[in-house]
């Protein structure tokens, strides 16, 4: 199939449907879309032209939309034999110069961890969407935020990565674009930590004019006028990451998962080289946490009781906060993580002063409250986790806990 042969799947469509086919990113305008569909459209706008995956509830709709859309935009779609090969094939696609996407859920996400680790070491950009479902095991198929720590710590070995948590259909679009930009800019696998609620929600999506969207493409050695003879594949030079050539660009392309020298050589091993190699790929993310991470607050001035949330629970939490504030709870504030990893301790501490109680609704047994405890170690009297499994918290559930703890 040639790059421009976009008609391969069209015999399956009626003439009416063929007329409606959009051969490129969605044009600017308003749409009423499923969260999963918005994610794929964001990926396409960001320049993603490769999807490999294996279906799993509740992430399969992202795969379905990709199967339909990738051929229409000149991309490739492959259903792989499992999640291990899906994630590994993203590594290959990425080194062939393409932006690559897969989507999965809990059990599949576990299988992808080896490839995530390899991608961190080899500084391979791609995006994995984890539409979280409850675990452990097969758990169930409804909503969850139980993989929030796995996203950061699930892969073996050191290194770091970036994870985002969308809360609306618009954010499924916007954050997918941001995820690709992060991946390309920092040469790192990026996790979009969605959940069943936001992936299976329909809402208005506004596609902005193309000029209003920032799309970042990886820096190649030829962009920096580096000759193939002078190119060291893992030397960041003065920048954040090393420039990344694709196979066929004429450069020495070295995709290596072992500890390596900036020239890609593994046989020069020494503990010093080891520290230099791994600390660089760790610090390129962690030292820029304040620049990378996005958090937002509301009513934090003079706040004594703070509600914190991320992902879909943001929407229950903010509703609970606004409800209580309208009843006179003027000391109630709200903090939301748009990105989860890396954690921006300075940003958090600049927004949150001394508070009595932190209330943290999560669709898990209370996981992300731990890094927050570390960041706010001397600022908070009491952390109160509000767990929910299998369903999004109702605002009333959060309100009841706040009233119970404060005795008001």
């Amino acid at each position: 199939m040639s790059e421009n042969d976009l008609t391969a799947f069209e015999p399956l469509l009626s003439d009416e449907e063929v007329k409606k086919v959009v051969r490129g990113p969605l044009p600017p305008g308003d749409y009423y879309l499923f969260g999963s569909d918005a994610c794929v459209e964001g990926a396409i706008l960001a320049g993603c032209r490769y999807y490999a995956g294996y279906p799993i509830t509740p992430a399969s709709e992202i795969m379905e939309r990709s199967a339909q859309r990738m051929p229409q935009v000149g991309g490739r779609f492959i259903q792989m034999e499992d999640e291990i090969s899906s994630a590994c094939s993203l590594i290959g696609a990425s080194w062939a110069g393409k932006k690559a996407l897969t989507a999965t859920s809990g059990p599949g996400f576990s299988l992808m961890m080896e490839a995530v680790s390899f991608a961190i070491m080899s500084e391979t950009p791609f995006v994995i969407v984890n539409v979280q479902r409850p675990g452990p095991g097969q758990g169930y198929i409804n909503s969850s935020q139980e993989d929030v720590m796995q996203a950061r710590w699930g892969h073996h070995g050191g290194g770091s990565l970036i994870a985002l948590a969308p809360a609306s259909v618009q954010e499924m679009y916007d954050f997918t674009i941001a995820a690709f930009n992060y991946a390309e800019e920092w040469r790192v696998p990026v996790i979009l930590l969605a959940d069943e609620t936001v992936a299976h929600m329909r809402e208005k999506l506004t596609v902005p004019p193309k000029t209003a969207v920032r799309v970042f493409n990886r820096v190649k050695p030829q962009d920096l006028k580096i000759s193939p003879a002078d190119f060291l594949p893992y030397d960041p030079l003065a920048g954040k990451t090393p420039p990344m050539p694709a196979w066929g660009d004429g450069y020495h392309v070295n995709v290596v998962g072992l500890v390596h020298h900036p020239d890609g050589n593994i046989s020069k091993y020494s503990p010093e080289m080891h520290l230099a190699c791994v600390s660089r790929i760790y610090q390129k993310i962690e030292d820029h946490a304040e620049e990378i991470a996005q958090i937002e607050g509301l009513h934090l001035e003079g706040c004594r009781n703070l509600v914190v949330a991320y992902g879909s629970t943001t929407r229950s939490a903010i509703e609970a906060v606004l409800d209580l504030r309208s009843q006179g709870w003027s000391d109630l504030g709200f903090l939301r993580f748009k990105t989860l990893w890396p954690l921006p301790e300075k940003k958090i501490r600049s927004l949150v002063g001394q508070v009595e109680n932190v209330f943290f609704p999560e669709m898990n047994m209370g996981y992300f409250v731990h890094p927050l405890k570390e960041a706010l170690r001397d600022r908070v009297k009491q952390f109160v986790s509000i767990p929910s499994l299998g369903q999004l918290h109702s605002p009333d559930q959060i309100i009841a806990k706040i009233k119970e703890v404060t005795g008001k």
Partner: protein
Amino acid sequence: MKRYEIRIAGFGGQGVVTIGKIAGVAAALYDKKNAVQTQSYGPESRGGACKVELVLSDGEIHYPKVRSADVLVALSQTAQDIYLKDLRAGGLLIVDPLTVLKDPPRQDIKIVKVPTAEIAVEVGNKKFQNLVALGALCQLTGVISQEALEKSIAENVPPKTLTQNLEAFKKGIEYVRK
């Protein structure tokens, strides 16, 4: 309009998710309101309590699901049994009397009975009962304009069945207008 919450429930296959989507498109794209639509998922979406929820507002919608429904459309007995408790006092219950046989054990709500399946058969097929229900919902609540819904129906049903779907929708409106 402040927050307005609609829940539609019935057997899997009755098309409740389809009319939820049609109503969402109508409200969001043509009536220019904010509209969040969610639906039941998993094994429960195949039994008698398959549900779709639509939250409408002129302002921003935070919590995407029903807190206290303004209207419940129940097309199965199970749907009424399970979801009645979330209907607010003074709320509206629309039921199909042929499938919902028991009267609801509540005095604080308004009940309208619409034989959706029977009306749909007049149009040609019982399948169109969801559109009859949508017509009744449109007329009784007035929260989404008929014009917007008709545009959305045209966009979201198979072209071959558009005439029948529109007819079913209009019959639903007429039935409750009487």
